[in-house]
């Protein structure tokens, strides 16, 4: 058993997600099966192998340091905020209670 209910609860807490109680058992079984499948990776010798760190090997892709036009207008960027102040800030409940 690689994981159990306590693991799932912990992962859900980390990911800020809530699993519906009626779905918990199947979720645990599915994840268990998938993680068991991954055991086969242990057989691969990766001694001295560098990990891939992204889709490309490009480094330092910069833009010019100039005062360019905004890529997105403030108005379109804030349009999908659920609650907006008059001056286009996103209004949310307190971060610290």
């Amino acid at each position: 058993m690689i994981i159990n209910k306590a693991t799932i609860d912990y992962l859900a807490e980390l990911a800020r997600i809530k699993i519906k109680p009626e779905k918990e058992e199947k979720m645990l079984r599915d994840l268990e099966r998938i993680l068991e499948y991954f055991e086969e990776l242990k057989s691969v010798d990766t001694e001295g192998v560098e990990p891939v760190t992204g889709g490309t090997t490009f480094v330092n892709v910069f833009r010019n340091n100039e005062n360019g036009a905004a890529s997105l207008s403030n108005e379109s960027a804030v349009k999908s905020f659920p609650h907006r102040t008059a001056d286009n800030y996103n209004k949310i409940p307190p971060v610290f209670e």
Partner: protein
Amino acid sequence: MDLHKLTIREFNAGLKSKKFSAGEATAEFLASIEFYDQEIQAYLEVFKEDALAEGESVDKIIASHDELPLLAGIPMAVKDVILVAGKRCTAASKILEHYYASFDADVVTRLRKQHAVFLGKVNCDEFAMGSSTENSAYQITKNPYDTERVPGGSSGGSAAAVASGMALVSLGSDTGGSIRQPASFCGICGLKPSYGAVSRHGLMALASSLDQIGPLGKCVEDVAIVFDALRGKSEYDSTSADISFSIDNIGKRKLSDYTIGVPKEYFIDGMEREVEEGVRSAIEKFKKAGAKIKEISLPHTRHALSVYYIILPAEASTNLARYDGIRYARRPEAEAAKTLKDIYLNQKSSGYGDEPTRRILLGTFVLSHGYYDAYYAKAQKVRTLIRRDFDEAFQDVDVIIAPVAPSRAFKIGEKIDDPLSLYLEDVFTLPINLAGLPSLALPVKKYSLAERELPVGFQIIGKRYREEDILNLGYQYEMIQFK
């Protein structure tokens, strides 16, 4: 007028010679959608007024005798993970049911420059997670060849729309096979470009090191033309690049110039007989036409599934964290919450379906303290080995031909209860994403909806940024077919 039977070039010629107007063409495709989509259910939203207006503006260009771009008036469908400004973009998820895109994706901007017509947004698996389009939170899309079967996924709507004549071409996205597999299941062509060849700006990110947007169409030339319009370095995607590609080179270099690799690990027990026969017959056709065929080995192929399903959820769990109800549309269940934490919990539990939830948990697990090294770091190292397999093979061959999926389109509901069995559908496609290579999926022969024979496809995999090679070979394969 059966305009859906035309190629892009034929369509363009028809517009220029005034055989039909762009307005008429758009209206015809909209009528097809109204008629066929009742059953196929490919479209999530149809842009009726906007499409007709776009058609009309193309007619104005024709009337003014200005230069008419090749893609002008071409009716296309867009997978609902690609942003079209001002339009709803749901990623086929309830969590974005009320989200409206604030900008055009880079690919959409490029297509607008050529005055393409956007017919609407098409269905996919939720957040592009899936291989059947059954994970959509909205509707099940049917395979036009057999409506009891899936069109494939995650770009099932994109494939079904083109296959049933409800769009001339479509845009999809491919992270582990999501363009190639549905293209094959629906008897059409689909291209997954090299990682970085097409900008991901405006694509709702699933796995940032694997995603690519690509075209689906009835023939290789159409796919090549759309790719040519989409590709290019974009200011807003630092992983994008300009590549050496000329549409005029498609059809030029002789088949006898090519050495084609056939990887032995891609022909496995449990493959459907029709798939193996179809792919081997395609290889035989290339051989008869003068190409050299060489058996090669990609020894780490069997580990690709584990590698992919560790890396993808890890990246996806990060990318999906943003839909927490704070910046984008908030669900009513989250609206009722009083604390920030409850907003997050209610938003995600009411918004995400089972597959995204599963992958978020999986991703969180493989990235968490105590498990990171054994899973994520290990997977990224094996990914290096998978890449090396391809690099070494490509010393001896120019392209690689392989099957796309172990089976043809399966029945709706057949695999949905067993996530692992769906993941196994991707074994032939996902190594290519892990290596960032381009791959073209095309049917082994021409299929007709009337005959209802389930399509078989194969893929031509190229070296990084060598879309010219795979499109050239695909185009010439189609020529051989009609001899």
